[in-house]
């Protein structure tokens, strides 16, 4: 037996095994590779396939979010507005506020009781606080986002406008993205068991309205802009002021910019 197969070069069993491997490989190429071709075309055509509630072209927007720390009073109106707008379950947050208190000796105290939903109690650090401020946080809608790269089923994606969204019909709740997000902006929804996060109120944006958090901020600390809209004031802030992003060393390219952020802010 052995000799015979050696003489013939490739035996029948070996041949079949190879053939199966080849076909399997081809199948993988077809399943995996096909999409990139389609995607390139669809994006180039720029939303030729327009659907949705009204005339709205995703590819003609690019949203930016700006937070001015000097204006944030830590009232929690944004957190409560987000909860009402998006049915965010209790004790989970799509946006939240952190209070930073820095002592003269450099100690940093950060707290966020119930995400700032009920604002803050007067502080009891007992330290000699030399500066303090509130930092609202939300999904940074990164251009180069780890959460989308980590998703094994293509449920996390970046919309043509640059908004990071979750397809909850496709999400399997593996929570890789929850662990992978450097900003802690995702959670597994306790009833749907799928990943949940800030959608930048996508359903409001497509209707020409701003996000719930921006609309309900009493001091204008939160701002939403559109880089593809001519003369946009918020895009102008990003273009002309000294803006900061969170964890720039990770090169996630956030679209959430902070004005007047101190170095303690992570």
């Amino acid at each position, binding site marked *: 037996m052995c000799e015979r197969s050696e003489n013939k070069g490739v035996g*029948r069993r070996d*041949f*079949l095994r190879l*053939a199966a491997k080849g*076909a*399997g490989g*081809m*199948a993988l190429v*077809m*399943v995996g590779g*096909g*999409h990139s071709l*389609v*995607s390139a075309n*669809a*994006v180039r055509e720029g939303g030729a*396939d327009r659907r*949705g*509630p009204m005339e709205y072209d*995703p590819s003609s927007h690019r949203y930016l979010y700006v937070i001015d720390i000097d204006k*944030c*009073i*830590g*009232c929690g*109106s944004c957190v*409560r*507005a987000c909860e*009402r*707008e998006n049915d965010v379950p209790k004790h989970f947050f799509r946006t939240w506020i952190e*209070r*930073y*208190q820095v002592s003269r000796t450099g100690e940093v105290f950060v707290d966020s009781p119930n995400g700032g939903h009920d*604002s803050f109690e*007067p*502080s009891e650090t007992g330290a000699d*606080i030399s500066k*303090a*401020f*509130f930092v609202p946080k939300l999904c940074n809608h990164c251009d180069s986002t780890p959460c989308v790269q980590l998703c094994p089923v*293509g449920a*996390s*994606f*970046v919309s*043509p406008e640059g908004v990071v*969204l979750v*397809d909850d*019909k*496709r999400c399997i709740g593996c929570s890789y993205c929850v662990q992978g997000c450097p900003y802690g902006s995702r959670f597994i929804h306790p009833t749907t068991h799928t990943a949940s996060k800030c959608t930048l*109120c*996508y*359903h*409001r944006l*497509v209707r020409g*309205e701003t996000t*719930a958090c921006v*609309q*309900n901020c*009493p*001091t*204008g600390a939160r701002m939403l802009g559109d880089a593809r809209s001519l003369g946009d004031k918020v895009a102008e802030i990003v273009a002309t002021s000294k803006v900061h992003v969170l964890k720039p060393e990770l090169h996630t390219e956030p679209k959430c910019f902070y004005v007047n952020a101190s170095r303690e802010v992570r």
Partner: protein
Amino acid sequence: MEHTKHIWRAAFLLIAVLTFVIVGRHFLVPKSFGQAGYYRYDALFEHMDKEPRHGAPDACADCHDDIAAAKASGKHAPVQCEVCHDVLSSHIKDGDKFADMRINRNWELCAYCHQRLVGRPALIAQVDIREHLELASGQAIPAEACVQCHDKDAIHHP
């Protein structure tokens, strides 16, 4: 020619595998997947279809123009009605009132913004609630403390 049957078997196997992959792919890869990227394009429209709860910033003024006008000329002008009350969709359906709007008279609502806090910028007027109410130590804050003096006209037009 005795080997041709091997080729047929291999060809048959290849066709079987290909059919399996194509049929399997048809069922496993959802409709619209890959249309604009490595995701289900329809998911984008499902997000769009969600109905907003908050109204436009001037939504309440359609029916409460008196209060809206008073508020616009007072210091609470930058404070949205929905921050102190509730979302438009809890009160209005198809352009008509279908349920009462929440009225929150609790002092905590005012304290969210006006409690004096370390780190709270001076752009907002702040009071130490207990001092402002002249409470004795240990005395609980009455639930509707602030509206006793800051009545509804004062609140809408401070």
